[in-house]
């Protein structure tokens, strides 16, 4: 379980301080699917980056109560090495641009985080590829796939090491509406099936409606729709 407590983050833009997250609090339980919407620059991605331990807040904490590792760790206080370890085992990331490594095959792309974390579950990955409908493409190079297929490979890669939390930053932003529907549905379903918590930033109301909880970020405040 991830417990976000009173997170505050501000930036200085052209000499002017701008609070982008203001006392944001949220609880993410295992298997939850949460969407965060908001205008451009409202701080959606910043919240995601804080959850991935890529950035530090000005105030507040993100407590990770995972009995397997650290029972009550505050992500915001992680050192660089701890943050690396956290991302290696606890988090999967999906980006708007699929960011697949183009010189290695689909299978190798998917297997990479599993190999890095040392958690290789070949059977699980086969099932994952099957449920995402890309098992026939495993030997292809990423640039031989369509955008929708590439994003499905990115989802498989994000889940390959069985992370408890999957963070997706506008995963359908680069896809057409048909592919967008298909990929977002697959993403939510797969996470549910694997009991992985999903936090997804999106501009699309249609995509957001697929998740259990819909939140809206405005003026630094997070409110549930």
């Amino acid at each position, binding site marked *: 379980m991830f417990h976000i407590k009173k997170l505050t983050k501000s930036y200085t833009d052209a000499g002017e301080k701008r609070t982008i997250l203001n006392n944001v609090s949220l609880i993410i339980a295992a298997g939850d699917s949460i969407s965060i919407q908001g205008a451009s620059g409202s701080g959606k*991605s910043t919240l995601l*980056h804080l959850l991935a331990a*890529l950035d530090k807040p000005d105030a507040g904490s993100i407590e990770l109560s995972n009995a397997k590792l650290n029972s009550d760790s505050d992500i915001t206080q992680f050192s660089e090495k701890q943050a690396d370890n956290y991302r290696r*085992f606890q988090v999967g990331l999906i980006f*708007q641009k699929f960011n697949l490594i183009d010189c290695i095959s689909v299978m190798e792309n998917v297997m990479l985080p599993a190999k890095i*974390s040392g958690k290789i579950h070949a059977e699980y990955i086969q099932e994952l590829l099957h449920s995402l409908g890309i098992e026939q493409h495993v030997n292809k190079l990423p*640039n031989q796939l369509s955008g929708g297929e590439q994003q499905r490979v990115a989802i498989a890669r994000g889940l390959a090491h069985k992370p408890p939390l999957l963070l997706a930053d506008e995963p359908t932003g680069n896809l057409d509406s048909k592919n967008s529907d298909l990929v977002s549905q697959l993403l939510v379903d797969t996470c549910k099936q694997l009991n992985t918590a999903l936090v997804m930033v999106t501009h699309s109301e249609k995509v957001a409606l697929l998740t259990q909880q819909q939140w809206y970020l405005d003026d630094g405040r997070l409110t549930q729709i």
Partner: protein
Amino acid sequence: MKHWPFIFVLINSYRNSKFSLAMLMASLIIAASGLSAVLVINSSAKQSYDNEKQFLIPNINATIVARTPSKKLSKQDYAALRIQGFNHLVAVAQTRQHVYSNQNKLSKRRIDFTGIDTFSLITLPLFSKPQALSQPKALSKTTSAEQKNKINTTEEQQLTDSLLQQLSFNKATAILHPQLLNNLQAAADVADGIIFTTKSERALPELVALEDAALGNDIIMDISQLFRLYPDASLTMLLVVGEISAKQQSALQGALPEHLQFKNTEKTSQNSELTNSFHLNLMAMALLMFVVCLFIVVNAVNLLLNGRLAWLKICRQLGISRLQLFTVQLLEIVLLTSLASAVGVFLGIELAKLASPSVQATLENLYQVQVGFGQVSITGLLLQVLGICLVGSVCAIFIPLSKLNHQLAHTKDLPLSFTQQRFWKRIIWASFVFFASLGFILLHNVQELWLLLVATACVILSGCSLLLANYPRSLALVQSIIPTRYPLLQVSAKQSLALSGKTKIACCAFFIAATSNIGMNLMVDSFRGATVGWLDQRLAADYYVYNSGEPKITELAQGTGVNVYQRLENYVQFKGQKIQQFSYPTDKFNQQAMSFYENSESDRLWEQFTLGEGVLVNQQFSFGLNYEIGDTIYLPHPTTGETASYPILGIIYDFGSPYAQVLMPINMFDAAKSKSYIYAIQGDESAIVRLREVMLEAGLDPSTQLIKTEDLLAMSMQAFDNTFVITDGLNVVTLLVAALSLACAIIVLMNDVRPQNMLIRSMGVSAMKTQLLALFQYLQLCLVALIFATPFGILLSWILIFDINYQAFSWTYPLIINPLKIIQIYATSLLVVTAIIAIPIVRAGRKPLIEDIRWVN
């Protein structure tokens, strides 16, 4: 001004591209300074060498010198010839001595004291035309731009003229180069009131500085002053001043006593060919560095243009034509090159000054030439460097500009289709076949040195093509041996494969640098090994005495208990070339000390040699004059002068000697008629002590003239190392430049690999690990290039030893392929590359991951 809006944007873009601009300027400045340094060194060395071979007075077409060192040209001979009406003869006496002050030796090297009979000179009708005489001596035969430039300096002509007059009317004056005067004054450590003297404390005439390149390491004075300072000095030659008719020449030759000979000065000597080889080699190294620098220019321009791509596309959308974009950017490169050339020229001159001691050592070791101080025409040098740099940089930007053209024409950089890939693959293989064939044909059919250098370039370029054709396969091989338990290394290896396609130019630059590094190092290493072995074998005696004049060491050593092996030498003309006849002892001990390149299989070799039934020749003789074992040569007998036939019994190693040499048994020589310079000494320590004492009593200096064999070996190797210090320096610089080229390419690629690095880091891989992986990727490319460079490096050293050295110097030595040396070069090269490319890699790796994520998305 239709270009103005674009120029405005371009100038403003410098704010955001300081680094790439700095890199571009740095590469251009390095290329320009390296090139100008070598041009200055070449010009300086050439001037010094010309000085050594030419005369102070112009219009000297012939000289009269003694036939043998034993019977010298005397004052009586000079007087007799002048009495007979040969008034256009001017006597010159020379001696090489140190300068002292308060009994302290001021000069590091001995200085040439030259005395001219200025009275005879000034009475010549020719001298009444100041412009004829006043030309500085180094200019009488030269053609170089700097020297031509100097001819026009009428001020100096007048100065030379007046000083020559001063020498003849004011006898207490001697002229020398200002820098030599400065050196002497600095060594005396007293600003004013220094009295320069000879060793015997005779005061030198007043020294007057003359800004003339021709003066080099000389002090010129009237001949009477020279004899006052050095009463034992003798006449060296008589100059035949002005044009003489065939009839006059015949009369003069008829009037010469038997021991004197008439020599034309226009014949090119063997040594001048040697200096040409030196200059060519130095130039080749400089051009190599220049070419590698141009690789940096390519990458730096690429880097600069890459940063501009976004706003260049906007400019295109706003209606600025591609031609306009190119014109302005081409103009920009021309301006930057001009600026860099100017800076590079000044840096190059300073660099040449820094390298000057090494150059002096090299020339002295190779050609026994005392190097003086060169004059440089900055305008000429600037024009030369600017011209070459402009051609180079305009050629270098062709690739990045055409790439930009492609990028501006297409919105997406599409990968090459299979047909295109196959086309380029064929082109690369065709280049390999072309360069390899051309290199092979040239190496087997040409003898001109410059064509051999072209052949060497072809061999290196064929290596580049082979590397490019085989990069993917080799990298795949490397990748296949990485165990699966290292997934990141595997991914990294696969990325290297992709990167190799984008770093072709930088990899080629590195390959060229590595090949030349391996080639040159193996050559020097082989030469060093051969020299050590040869010296070890040849320097078989305990001590050596160097004394060119009286008293004879053989006479001095009588009763001291040492065995003296005298080395007698004569210089004779053979097929229009000056060759050495050298004595060689025939006892068992010296037979074992002989180092043969090739000898007749006959058991009677030494017996035949001892009986004078055959001779040994050095490689310079055999290769230079095209003789083999068993061939018969006709030579004058060293004592009687009668020509007889001698079969060649063996060819010996004689590294570094510029002379073709024939070894004959010592019993054929007459000590009174031959020149004696070296004496090999064998004896116990007490006998050596006694020899030392008798040498001191005879006025010799055993501390410098009696040298222990180990010391001689050490001195020889020191001289050897000095000779190759420039080569070593240029090698390291070339490698650094290649590494810089690679660093530039990496900076360009950083943006390409940024998303992938970001991704790997987002999977929990530490920044340090990511940086190490990036380093691994590029080192892997370098390692493959090094592996390919190894056989080409060995081939290069083979060409250098057996083709270029053979043609340039007429001697070779065995090629020693020392695996340890190759490993050492591998380590040095990878270390240099790591040091340079680590900078952009660490710079990129230090950025927080979130910045990369924001940038990518």
